[in-house]
């Protein structure tokens, strides 16, 4: 059921965990599609695979975002900080992919003050990529922090497919390219609409 008009949803995006489902001919949802839908690029910060500079180490990227956002390291968990502290200075290519993504997303949620926009989220799930989680204690700890963050925080998730854990979101907006097509507050109705 459409519960909102186009002009009303921007306000709600700030205060709820939302999915924006985009029916698009493009192969993926990029920055341009996000900006066209939000009508502005200043409404929030997007989490992209380049949120962390791929040629720098995790520790350097973490320090960079802490300084640029003006946040103290104290806002992070001690467990998280001790993991970061012991990491070698290696670029993305030589790092564990899960480790890289988890630290990046945790940093993103703490460092970004405005609306948090994601078109990519390293949700720990049962896919092949996350199978190694049980063998590495540090990555497992980080994955738990990521799970906690995804449950506790408000953010907007852009997708062109039914996202993993979509049922945990509070509202679902549908767009055809950049045109608003409907808004749902019930996952089942949303699923019926998009499948």
């Amino acid at each position: 059921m459409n519960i909102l008009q186009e002009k009303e949803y921007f306000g709600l995006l700030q205060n709820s965990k939302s999915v924006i489902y985009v029916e698009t001919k493009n192969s993926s949802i990029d920055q341009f599609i996000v900006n066209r839908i939000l009508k502005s690029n200043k409404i929030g910060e997007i989490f992209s695979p380049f949120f962390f500079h791929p040629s720098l180490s995790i520790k350097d990227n973490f320090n960079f975002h802490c300084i640029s956002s003006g946040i103290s390291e104290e806002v992070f968990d001690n467990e998280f900080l001790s993991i970061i502290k012991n990491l070698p200075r290696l670029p993305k290519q030589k790092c564990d992919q899960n480790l890289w993504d988890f630290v990046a997303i945790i940093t993103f949620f703490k460092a970004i003050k405005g609306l948090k926009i994601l078109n990519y989220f390293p949700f720990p799930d049962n896919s092949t990529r996350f199978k190694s989680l049980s063998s590495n204690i540090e990555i497992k700890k980080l994955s738990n922090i990521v799970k906690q963050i995804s449950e506790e925080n408000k953010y907007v998730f852009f997708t062109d497919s039914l996202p993993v854990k979509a049922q945990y979101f509070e509202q679902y907006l549908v767009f055809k390219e950049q045109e608003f097509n409907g808004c749902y507050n019930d996952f089942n109705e949303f699923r019926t609409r998009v499948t």
Partner: protein
Amino acid sequence: MHTLTKTSNRILSLILLNFSSMSSNGNMAISYRGIYINFGIIWNTFSPLIIVYAISYIFSIGLRGARGLFDIEYFVFIFLFWINLSTLVQTLLAREINNNFFKFKSYGNILFISIAHIFTSLLQALARFLFTILLIYFFGIEIKLMTLAIGFFLICAFAVLFSYLLKFLFVDSQVFINFTNFFMQALFFASNIIFPITIMPEPLKSYLLFNPIVHINEFLRESYSGIYGGFVDLNYVGLFLLFLFVTCIFVTLMRLELIYKMK
């Protein structure tokens, strides 16, 4: 006040990013029994000194038994200042702004990135300068600290304003970057870095004196040699820097769209 803090935080973080990028080159890393040491920043900062010291030494001792052309105590600094200038100009121009990392960030604009890069290069230039002074002092050679400090300050001021101006005028144009690299090499020979202005032929001499770097180099050379040719005019250098400064402000205002450019 809040905006100022935010801006300074962003510039500070970009400086950190510049230094981190230097150590990201895995070729300068040593990994031994779990200990990982990266010499990237040290190598990037001090590697230009190898060529500076080598050329200065060759020119000071001379070849095939001939007497050296210059005294090493001032030539090394004239050459070092030139290397600092060309490094700053070339690296600032080569710094690409619209890459994947910056385009998603609201502060990935030309002003912040240029300022951060200038500060990074200046810190490196200062480290090279101080290291060379210590080295000269270690060998027991006379140091005219005030003269060198003035030379360093003036060349750095010129390098900052000149590179900032070029960056704002031509942004990431590859053609212009190549042209500038060629121009900088030509300028090396068309200035008084190797040969003093006093031995230049007359028509060339009067043209070269339009270049403020010639005055600064000659100031250093005269202070050390005690032979005054009457060509040095630091007032001209000051006025030239003032002109560059005003032009930089003007160009910044003309190119505000680059600063406020949408992500």
